[in-house]
């Protein structure tokens, strides 16, 4: 077996003394899509944001256990800025920065000191193509990103993340505000992207998890109930609660 890209060992997180995640063990192999499902408040978003240390900004967060990226401890051996360049994230709400489409995509590379205009233009084209947005915006790269539709904004956010050349991409309910056609485009992009990246997808939509995930993890009340191949989770779950959730009996 190949060594895991991300390895989560006995991870517990609490905010203000209130536990949010408890004792999570999980390995994520490279170049797969791991879907994370579970009802609200199950800790799945906390789990995701722990992977690239976005929770660091929250006050009163306590964390025990460890997260390893390529066998290096994310919380002890990485600078958060470097880590976030390797582990990108797409949020539930599309969050284009208040600037043009072009500037949004090159925001990350610029911050790393890349100034060469030709190189940046090439990056913009490559990333927008990978995010399936190029054809729709190539004629108006210098118009404000806020003018795009919700689905286009979300794909712009994907392109922007790709421009940083990450190794892992986290998706936090990326399609929750999108119509079915935009959702299909984002899912198509994800399926193509896993060739080059490792993807963790948090979703409220169990059908989406079944469609795009190679593996699926089910969280409930801060606990990782079950993780395995998507096929077996959805056809023959080992835990009763997983069965209840995916068949819609609660949640």
């Amino acid at each position, binding site marked *: 077996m190949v060594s895991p890209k991300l390895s989560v060992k006995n991870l517990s997180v609490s905010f203000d003394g209130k536990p949010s995640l408890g004792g999570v063990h999980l390995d994520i192999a490279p170049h797969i899509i791991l879907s994370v499902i579970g009802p609200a408040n199950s800790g799945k978003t906390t789990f995701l944001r722990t992977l*690239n240390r*976005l929770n660091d*900004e929250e*006050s009163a967060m306590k964390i025990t256990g460890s997260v390893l990226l390529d066998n290096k401890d994310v919380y002890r051996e990485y600078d*958060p*800025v*470097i880590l*976030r*360049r390797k582990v*990108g*994230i797409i*949020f539930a*709400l599309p*969050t*284009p*920065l*208040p*600037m043009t489409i072009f500037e949004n995509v090159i*925001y*990350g590379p610029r*911050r*790393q000191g890349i100034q060469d205009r030709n190189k940046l233009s090439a990056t913009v084209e490559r990333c927008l193509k990978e995010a399936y947005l190029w054809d729709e915006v190539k004629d108006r790269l210098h118009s404000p990103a806020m003018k795009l539709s919700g689905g286009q904004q979300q794909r712009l*956010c994907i392109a*922007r*993340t790709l*421009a*940083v050349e990450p190794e892992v991409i986290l998706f936090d309910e990326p399609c929750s505000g999108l119509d079915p056609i935009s959702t299909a485009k984002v899912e198509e992009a994800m399926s193509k992207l896993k060739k080059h990246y490792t993807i963790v997808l948090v979703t409220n939509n169990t059908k989406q998890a079944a469609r795009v995930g190679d593996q699926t993890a089910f969280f409930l009340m801060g606990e990782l109930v079950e993780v395995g191949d998507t096929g077996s989770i959805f056809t023959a779950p080992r835990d009763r609660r997983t069965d209840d959730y995916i068949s819609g009996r609660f949640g």
Partner: protein
Amino acid sequence: MPVRYKLKEFLFETIIRASGLASIIAVGLIFFFLLKEGTLLFQTQTLGDFLLGKKWYPISEPPGFGILPLILGSLLVTLGAAIISIPLGIACAVYIAEVAPPRIKEILKSGVELLAAIPSVVLGFIGIVTVVPWIKSTFDVPTGLTAFAGSFILAFMAMPTVVSIAEDALHSVPKIYKEGAYALGATQWQTIYRVVLPAAASGIVAAVMLGIGRVVGETMAVMMVTGNSASMPKGIFYPVRTLTATVAAEMGETVQGSDHYFSLFAIGIVLFVITFAVNMTADVFIHRRRK
């Protein structure tokens, strides 16, 4: 609806409307009064002589009613105060809103509010005993009572306004912008400089304008530390006199109905127009931010 509810509704509506109108009426009356008294000056003086005249000798014979030295005095002091307070104020706001740990944030915020609560006359006499001698010895000038002393003191009067409004603007930048920038591997400073500050720009400009408005209208502290010399200002290290200080100093001694009396009202109009313009500019930026 029963009649007594109707009456109650009507009463409340009337009272609230009257309170709302009261402030506008007050401003209107003040402006009208200023205009009525101030314009009487122009029976004997031309507007050009008044605004551009270089000699302010209101009780000499023949009198001079040129307020150019006073306008320049105000301008010089305001400019100096702006140069000191804008970078300091914005930096302080950024620190409070983005960098400071919660405890220090609270201490700083109440500190800034306290600064706003200090009466200007107190700042003025602190200026006289500390800033003025310091300027005299440090910059080797004949007197420390200079435009620079006024700027320095006023900078600290403008600071609370600039800091609290700018901090507000920074605070209201959506958290998702910041997280978006962090997620792309931006450092904290890059996030502040490239994302948070531009997003809050219009609010910050409004903060600066309101701070300047405060400086232009301030009287007491300036009068105490700028040396009150109504001659054309030669530089930041020379005594000057501002528009406000002139009115405050001379109003009590002037003969009612004289040209001198009317000229002080005319100065009031000039001040009114300046602060009105500054506040309007701030307003435009605040509204742009809400959109």
